[in-house]
């Protein structure tokens, strides 16, 4: 058996001096999609930030191995270039910077790290427009300032657009479904499914089993108080929908 794409062992992490992750273990094979569910404040977003290497999220013990290398030793942008992508729960606005300009810089930074050629403006726009069409997004959002004045759902769609353009090997989606209307949920899910590939894995953080009808996970984990307390198949999500976290997440 080949090594997993991502292996998290006994991970402990602090934010502002407070321990949030408390002995988290998780193994993700290439080609798989895992869902992470769990009560508010259980540490789901924290896990995503720790994996992405955000400043202020201090790992106190444990290890994270990504494609066989020590992920925690890499700077934020090095992780991104190595193929880690995080669709944020709350995407950030950057005034004055056109969406396309921003993403072209990002895509070229990632491509350079992979030893791939740089896209010129024309090549980039051609690809960006094609992806936009797949995600049924209005092309005006390419020239508008990044996330500025985008609705909640538009921001989330834009995250998936960025993911599609960056072609990461590990995609972490933090509540990408919240704020999406019914049609958008389907479109975004199709976008995500289109990216499922044997060499790519995804961690999908969600509160709603509905998303998992579209993006069918290989495994569902329940995170509570900084630990994975239960792991099951897709049916676990259905069960949680009925029972809530009462029985599992003490």
């Amino acid at each position, binding site marked *: 058996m080949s090594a997993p794409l991502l292996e998290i062992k006994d991970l402990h992490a602090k934010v502002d001096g407070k321990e949030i992750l408390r002995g988290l273990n998780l193994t993700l094979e290439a080609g798989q999609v895992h869902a992470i569910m769990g009560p508010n404040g259980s540490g789901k977003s924290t896990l995503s930030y720790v994996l992405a290497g955000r400043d202020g999220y201090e790992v106190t013990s444990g290890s994270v191995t990504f494609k066989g290398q020590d992920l925690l030793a890499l*700077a934020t942008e090095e992780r991104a270039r190595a193929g880690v992508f995080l669709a944020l729960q709350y995407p*950030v606005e950057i005034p*004055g910077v056109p969406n396309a300009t921003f993403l072209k810089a990002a895509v070229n930074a990632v491509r350079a790290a992979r030893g791939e050629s740089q896209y010129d403006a024309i090549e980039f726009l051609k690809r960006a427009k094609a992806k936009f069409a797949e995600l049924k997004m209005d092309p005006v959002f390419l020239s508008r300032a990044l996330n500025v004045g985008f609705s909640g759902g538009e921001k989330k769609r834009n995250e998936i657009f960025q993911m599609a353009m960056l072609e990461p090997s590990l995609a972490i989606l933090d509540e990408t479904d919240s704020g999406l209307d019914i049609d958008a949920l389907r479109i975004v899910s199709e976008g995500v499914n289109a990216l499922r590939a044997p060499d790519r894995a995804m961690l999908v953080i969600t509160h709603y089993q509905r998303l998992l009808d579209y993006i069918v996970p290989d495994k569902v984990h329940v995170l509570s108080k900084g630990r994975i307390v239960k792991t099951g198949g897709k049916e676990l999500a259905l069960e949680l929908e009925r029972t809530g976290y009462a029985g599992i997440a003490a």
Partner: protein
Amino acid sequence: MAVSQDTVEAVRVASEYKYGFVSDIDDDRPPKGLSEDTIRYISAKKEEPIWMLDWRLAAYRHWLTLENREPQWAKVEFPKIDFQDLYYYSAPKVKEGPKSLDEVDPELLKVYEKLGIPLKEQEALSGIAVDAVFDSISVATTYKAKLGELGIIFCSMSEAVREHPELVRKYLGSVVPVADNFYATLNSAVFSDGSFVYIPKGVRCPMELSTYFRINASNTGQFERTLIIADENSYVSYLEGCTAPMRDENQLHAAVVELVALEGAEIKYATVQNWYPGDKDGKGGIYNFVTKRGACRGARSKISWTQVETGSAITWKYPSVLLEGDDSIGEFYSVAVVNNRQQADTGTKMIHIGRNTRSTIISKGISAGHGQNTYRGLVRMQPKADNARNYTQCDSLLIGPDCGGHTVPYIEVRNRSARAEHEATTSKISDDQLFYCRQRGLSTEDAVSVIVNGFCKEVLQKLPMEFAVEAQKLLGISLEGSVG
């Protein structure tokens, strides 16, 4: 959310000045200090007519009465300048004025190459006419013939004094009077060289006119003097770009730029200023005390200033517009960056004199390190300025806890139908923004650059294309050190 300590620390680290080198070209200069003799020396060197010498001497005599009366109101601090300890003239040794670039000192051309301004390439490729001011003398002028066919005059100020005395006498000092302020008076006495532009009636100048200024000889105060006249219904766009070599002593630069737009004429004046800002402790660096002013003399005339100020230890600069003609328009678009110990006090004055005059002010101040950045702007509506309108927007962006951004607007409305509108914001580069950019693969340095360029977009858009690209790079360079 506040910016992280890392970023703050990183920004504090001095950036190496990219254009820091001193080229060794012999110079030719009088002894240090300022006296009537110095002025006679300068005037003689330049083979000026007697009226020009008299004008300089009158300015000098007035300047003597201003002793110790340097302007004090700007929010900048520096040791008192000993004006007797400066050189007032320096010229590269060139036997005859060069007829073409081939005759220009190859050392000089190398300097331009280091600066990334290959003149030959510019001449051949970009269609930009370059009147290159090296230290105090213009050494290369291109495209003159082509412009000449349209009756456009684009030459050095020294040449204009000799060849076009009627225009120079009519307009020199007509916008910035000799007695305007301490530094302008000094400049009037000792000005070395600069550009002269005249666009005849109804002519649209077919290319951007461009000058690269450069301070070179050690300890030489630079006193450029530029005069641009756009006759009725003409149009011109002028670009000024500056870089200077690294050195230890502070250097005084006190330029005067005067613009005159007659009826229906339009002048666009763009500057990218990148003089040596000093090291991270503020040692060295240029003192840039500039008086720039335009007069919209005729009805429906328009003057637009665009500046990107990234260099100099101290910037003291208020490109202004006198809106004399009815329906005339004044614009000021500015980006000013300070890092380390740099200080900038910059802004504009829009003086509405005629009816239906309009002005727009967009100022973007970026402060990092221990930099202090002040926007100072005056909007005045004179009693006859019926229906005059001003819109002012001042935005400050702060990087780190030790810098300052200040906005000092002066608004004087003396006409009931006139309106002035002022908006101001202060923001920081947030940790969220930096994280987001880096998570997408950008380095911290590129992230800062992207965010800053976004912040300045409205101003950068006003620059001609080639200049905008250069300006964007400069913004990145001057904020370098924000690398995590």
